[in-house]
């Protein structure tokens, strides 16, 4: 039943202006295998969750499943938001207790997703063409950039790296959004740093690299950081760290950054997870 529109005090939970972050009680729609490494979780989510922006994350309360008994929440950046159908989506690799527990979720299960959290990717209005470079599960984090760039009329070249072709994620998302997709893999040797650097240099020469975006590989991040510094091109990197609260309270998830030649600690959950590429340090 709808509340009368004259209700002077709507419930606090539905006032996103006051509580932009919520423990969203979601329902699992699907949780299928993409390949033998990755799974794709689709959650029907309430309104606060659907406000998530590219690069932001949710802090997931993974219910214990068999021997997988995660105690803390698990941070995971959103892979896709489907506002028309009221869904948020995650792409994940089963590694530890948290993702093992997630893999056991079945359609209809309830799932508590705290968020949306953190600072996501931003697009400068001056940028006409961006380059997105990611590897492994980092490709899931970068995927929402495809849509964000398309909405803003920004051209995207996505260089997607993986061990072998079957583990290339987000190819369709970037292609459907009108981006150019270049795939590189370890299996055919095309993911070697020299080759990736040559591709990036060609894009710079073609004036298609107003900014860089990266996630998922320390090696690629360092490569881009060096090229970006040499060419004066801005960039953003999405970083991971173990977290407890996800809200900036516990100071568990700090990483070191270099700001004006000084090394400072920043919270990945609160000041990130997306950071200025110039300030990010090797991990």
């Amino acid at each position: 039943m709808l509340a009368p529109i004259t209700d002077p005090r709507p419930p606090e939970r539905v006032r996103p202006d006051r509580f932009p972050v919520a423990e969203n009680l979601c329902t699992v729609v699907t949780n299928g295998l993409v390949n033998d490494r990755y799974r794709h979780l689709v959650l029907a989510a309430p309104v606060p969750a659907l406000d998530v922006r590219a690069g932001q994350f949710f802090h997931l309360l993974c219910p214990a499943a068999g021997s997988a008994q995660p105690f803390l929440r698990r941070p995971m950046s959103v892979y896709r938001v489907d506002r028309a159908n009221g869904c948020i989506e995650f792409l994940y690799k089963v590694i530890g207790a948290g993702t093992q527990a997630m893999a056991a979720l079945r359609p209809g299960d309830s799932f508590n997703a705290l968020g949306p959290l953190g600072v996501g990717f931003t697009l400068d209005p001056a940028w006409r063409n961006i380059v997105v470079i990611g590897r492994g599960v980092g490709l899931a984090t970068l995927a929402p950039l495809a849509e964000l760039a398309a909405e803003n009329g920004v051209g995207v070249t996505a260089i997607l790296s993986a061990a072998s072709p079957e583990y290339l994620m987000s190819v369709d998302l970037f292609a459907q959004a009108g981006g150019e997709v270049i795939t590189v893999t370890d299996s055919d040797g095309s993911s070697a740093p020299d080759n990736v650097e040559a591709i990036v240099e060609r894009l710079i020469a073609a004036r298609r690299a107003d900014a860089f975006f990266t996630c998922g590989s320390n090696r690629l991040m360092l490569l881009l950081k060096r090229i970006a510094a040499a060419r004066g091109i801005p960039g953003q990197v999405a970083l991971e760290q173990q977290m407890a609260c996800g809200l900036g309270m516990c100071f568990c998830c700090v990483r070191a950054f270099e700001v004006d030649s000084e090394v400072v600690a920043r919270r990945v959950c609160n000041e990130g997870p997306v950071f200025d590429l110039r300030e990010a340090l090797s991990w």
Partner: protein
Amino acid sequence: MVDLSVRVGALELQNPVMPASGTFAPELAQVVDLDRLGALVTKSFTRDFRAGNPTPRVAETDSGMLNSIGIPSKGLDHFLNETVPAYRRFRPPLVASISANTAEDFVALAREVSVRAVDAIEVNISCPNIEADGKAFAMHADMTERIMTRLRAATPKPLWAKLTPNVGDIAEIARAAEAGGADALVVANTLLAMTIDTDSFRPTLGSIMGGLSGPAIRPVIVRMVYQCARAVGIPVIGCGGISTARDAVEYLLAGATAVQVGTATFLHPTAMTAIIDELARWCDARGVARVADLVGAVRDDDLSADRYEAVR
């Protein structure tokens, strides 16, 4: 409707539920209404800048977590100019948690933080004293009484001593803190603990050892609250693994006047307000008129246990 208010020394709290230091920040206002809390307790800070410990700073274990944050701090000026105003947007009493490695720093900090906006000072005497070979002040009764005596002389604000559970006789430490002039005790900080990754053979925390918190430690700390509450006349604030209203009631029965909630907020940012709501419902259903009536109400004086003199 139950009267949830409690009195911790000179401070009247609208309810007995407040955050544990280090598990709370104004950022939580993104998720819950902080004006509903019994008090606001800041993260511990030191006079000077401190970087904190290496990562990983957190590890999980069965029904709990280990942390080793190392009290990163931006110093006194930042606390007074940035942190205090950020908290003063909210109405509950503000408790400033202070930490120091030397008695001299502790005394100076207590004096300097005694500004109008601060309603009480929680003294984190669970941190290592570098003048005593790194042992925490609150690991020794004589050190506890000496530091509390000096702090008492340094500030007119209510002083809450936060004790460490890493001691053999917590009641002795509690009495020493009271003798030194503490207005209340917070029992307790985290239990010193360690876990090792059996794949990598490495300690799971960057600083090897850390503090265990969460439901895993609750029975240990309930016992300590019980022992402390019987040993002293000042209020005891229970802190250790509280996730539900029942957990809070357990602490009140053991003798706590109020409770602090920490790790539960990491799992559910709405934990504190949920506990307040549930506590009110529980009291109403049980016919408890004042939550203060539960304090120390454990029935430990009429135990009808069988006694066995020998096994035959």
